[in-house]
Every structure is written in structure tokens, then in C-alpha cells.
């Protein structure tokens, strides 16, 4: 029951986090900012419109927003809330969880290439390059959590931690935060606000989408933000060792705080120089690898 409620909360609240990020950025810039529910208005507006398709595109272009959203919905099913198991869980579902993101990315990249635009191809190339660098960090981070909790199912990963594991969890959390920023194309890896700039990554791949398709892409992106963010909030829950019915409200509050942190990072930092991005992502991988080695040595 709780896991069902939890999925509903994710489906309803995911676009809300974008509003919080935008509000935080507006606050730091001294502006009033958009309404908190602006993302919902945008989605509604897009759903009411018609889609326009270029003659170059094939069925891949039309299918990939649906596949992307389906991947995110599937990933959501595996996502536990702290110590509560997810709706669906089985042994080794962490591998499936990690590669559902890969599948989504694969289809977005295919669709970007499908449009035949050189600009989108460039964005696709960058996306693939950076996510290949971010993947070791994510996999090592999840592997560390699995070794610590001695469970290879995502649902068993976030049980209350013994005090001795806290530095390891902190390393993993920092590493996953960088992966989170990279996967969601936020500053300092990518700037979600720039359009028609030669350095953008994610936005360039979805330039050709319009109407309901764009709504699907945006909603899937919001869910991705939620799911990857939930990993970090769950680590935090394991950190403070919370259990019982208080988990759900604390979890929701944690997601909002995470969105505020993202807003603060975006206000305080500039986007990294393009050549520096691989260094940051490899650095995240290093943190994860160190955490993994430590957890093997100290818990093993």
C-alpha cells in the first residue's frame, strides 16, 4: 500500500520539483519567478496542441518519447522508499534499474539521429560521451550500496546503516549527486536554460519534438530527476536510520530540499568548460571506486 502511494506521489510531484528549482534560481537572481505549478501548465498546454513531424523522421522518432516514458515508469516501480520495499522487486534488479536509464537514453539518441539534423547529431554524440563517463560512477555507487547492505535488490539497499558505514555513504552520495546533475543535464555539466547555444547537450536532442510528444519527453525527464534524486534521498534516510511511518513525509521533504540544493548549485556555479566535464565525471567515478574498495576492505 505504501509503495503504491509512493509511486502516485512520484507521478504527481515530479514536475513540481522543476518549479522549485526554478523558484530557487529566481530567488537568487532577485526575481519573482514562475508560479510553482508552471511545469504542469506547460505540460497541459503541450498536450492540447498538435504534434508536427518532419518528413525525414520515421517511426523511431514517434516511438522514442513513449519508450522513454515507459522506461522511467518501469524504473519507478523498482524504487524503494527508504526501508520500505518497492512495488516490484527481485534479485539483481539493480542492474535492470541502471540500464533502464540506458535504454531511455539509447532511444532519445536514436530519435535525435533520426531527425537528420547535424545539430541534433552533435548533441547526441555529446550525450553518449558524457553518459558513458557517468555510468561507471553510477554502477560503482550502486554496487557499493549493495555490498554494504548485502542485498542485490534495490529494495534492500537502503536499510538503516551502521555508524561505521557513514563515510562510505557520504562518498557514494557525492558521486551520485554528480551523476544526478549530469544525467539531468543541469549546471555544471549542461545548462537547461540555454537554447541555440553550441554547447548544449540534452535540449538540442529534443528540438524537433512538439505538442504531446514534447510533453511526454518533458514528463519523462521530470520523472528521471525524481528517480535519481530519490536514490540520494534514500541514502540520506539510511544515513539517519529512519524507520516507520515517518519515512514518507521525510522522503517528500528530502526531495524538495534536494531540488532547492540543485537550484542553489545552478545559481552559484557557472557551467564548466566543455573540456572540464569529463574530468568531473571521471572524478565522480573515482569517488565511487574508492567507496567500493573501502566497503570491500572494511566490511568484507
Amino acid at each position: 500500500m505504501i509503495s503504491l502511494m509512493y509511486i502516485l506521489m512520484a507521478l504527481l510531484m515530479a514536475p513540481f520539483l522543476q518549479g522549485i528549482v526554478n523558484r530557487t534560481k529566481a530567488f537568487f537572481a532577485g526575481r519573482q519567478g514562475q508560479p510553482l505549478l508552471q511545469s504542469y501548465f506547460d505540460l497541459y498546454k503541450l498536450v492540447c496542441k498538435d504534434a508536427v513531424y518532419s518528413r525525414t523522421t520515421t517511426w523511431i522518432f514517434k516511438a522514442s518519447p513513449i519508450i522513454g516514458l515507459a522506461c522511467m515508469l518501469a524504473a519507478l516501480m523498482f524504487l524503494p522508499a527508504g526501508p520500505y520495499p518497492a512495488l516490484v522487486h527481485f534479485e539483481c534488479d539493480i542492474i535492470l534499474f541502471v540500464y533502464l536509464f540506458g535504454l531511455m537514453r539509447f532511444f532519445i539518441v536514436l530519435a535525435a539521429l533520426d531527425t537528420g539534423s547535424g545539430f541534433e547529431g552533435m548533441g547526441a554524440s555529446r550525450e553518449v560521451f558524457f553518459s558513458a563517463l557517468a555510468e561507471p560512477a553510477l554502477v560503482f555507487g550502486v554496487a557499493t550500496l549493495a555490498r554494504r547492505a548485502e542485498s542485490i535488490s534495490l529494495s534492500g539497499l537502503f536499510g538503516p546503516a551502521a555508524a561505521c558505514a557513514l563515510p562510505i555513504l557520504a562518498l557514494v552520495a557525492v558521486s551520485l549527486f554528480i551523476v544526478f546533475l549530469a544525467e539531468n543535464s543541469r549546471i555544471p555539466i549542461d545548462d537547461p536554460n540555454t537554447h541555440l547555444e553550441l554547447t548544449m547537450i540534452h535540449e538540442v536532442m529534443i528540438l524537433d519534438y512538439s505538442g504531446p510528444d514534447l510533453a511526454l519527453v518533458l514528463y519523462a525527464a521530470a520523472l528521471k530527476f525524481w528517480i535519481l534524486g530519490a536514490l540520494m534521498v534514500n541514502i540520506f534516510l539510511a544515513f539517519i536510520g529512519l524507520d516507520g511511518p515517518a519515512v514518507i513525509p521525510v522522503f517528500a521533504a528530502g526531495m524538495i530540499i534536494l531540488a532547492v540544493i540543485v537550484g542553489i548549485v545552478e545559481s552559484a556555479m557557472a557551467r564548466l568548460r566543455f573540456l572540464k566535464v569529463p574530468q568531473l565525471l571521471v572524478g565522480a567515478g573515482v569517488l565511487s571506486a574508492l567507496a567500493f574498495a573501502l566497503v570491500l576492505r572494511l566490511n568484507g
Partner: protein
Amino acid sequence: MNNIVDLILVFLILSGFGLLGSSRLVSCIRIAAAQGTALGFLVLAQSFGVLSLRVIFITVAVVVLKGFVFPHLLERALRESDTSREVQPFVGYVGSLVTGVIILVFSFWLGLKAALPVAGASSIIVTGAFFLFLVGLFLIVARKTAINQVVGYLVMENGIYIFGFATVAEIPALVELGVLLDVFVAVFVMGIAIYRINKAFDHIDSDRLRSLKG
């Protein structure tokens, strides 16, 4: 991971990675300073139960020398030269980080193999020692600026130092101070050498010194 010694060792390893990944010379010097300070506290934490005058003395000496005096000397040498960052090292920064991971794995393997004579020592102390030692060596080989090479030397020395009290429980204070004095003189001389190199050649790029051959 149950005590403060492990925490400090993790911090030392992280600082090693920081040195491998940063191109600005000032931040390299600052990270090395933080590493030296942490090393001093490692001495203190290692012998927390038996807080003797000798331990306090060594801690203060290490922190003052490695945390303040060396960085100060290096920063002065840096100010004199017009260099602010390492532009083209022999091994790039991403390559250095990956090498660091390989060194880390190798050090963990060594840590598993090495049987410690000191009872109750942290289980990753040998790992930390070898990691810093190898990272220091790597920095000396892979970087061109003289400042970074001195930093690499210091990091290597830190590694040897940690290995020292992983294997021998109580090194006499006189020996430790002798080692510190040696390092101090070495850094002092290298600082002067960097200053002189900069005066004579207008750069501190050790790779370009082969034009000395005439």
C-alpha cells in the same frame, strides 16, 4: 571504518586524487598543505590512548612544517614565477585520475598481502601509505612544472612516513625530527632552485631545461 584513523586515511587518499586532478598550482599547494596537516593529526589519532609529550611534539612539528612552512615556501616560489597552472602535463588530468584508480587498486591489493607487525593498526593504513607513495612518484614523473614535482616529492614523503608508523610502533622522536629536518632542507633548497630557474629561464618548466646542454 570505525575510528578516526580510518577517516583521516580516507581523507589522505582523497587529497591524493585531488592532486591528480587539479591543474592550478595554487590549489595543488593548498591540497598538499591540507594533506600535511591531516598527516599530523593522524600521528595524534594513532596514539590517542597514550598521549605523551613525544606525540604532541611530533604532531606540532609535522603540522607546522607540512601544513604551513612548506606551502608558504612553495607559494612564494610560485608568486615569483609567472606560472599559475600546469598547461600541458605529460599525462593529462583524466589520464592521471584513471592512473590513480589503478594505483588505488594495487595499493588495496598490497594492503591485503602485507601482514602488519603492529597490532591494532587500521586495516587500510598500508593501502594509504602505498597509495600516497605511488601517487607522489607519479606526480614527479607526469608533471612538468617544478612546483608540482616538489609537491609530488612531499606526497611521496608523506606515504613513507605513514608506512613508517604502520610498521614500527614507536619511532624515536629524534629520528622523526631528523627526517623532518631532511625534508625541510630539501624543500628549502628546491624552493631556491625554482626561484633561480625562473630567474635564469623565465619559466619553471623542467622539461625545457634540456636546452641547458647548449
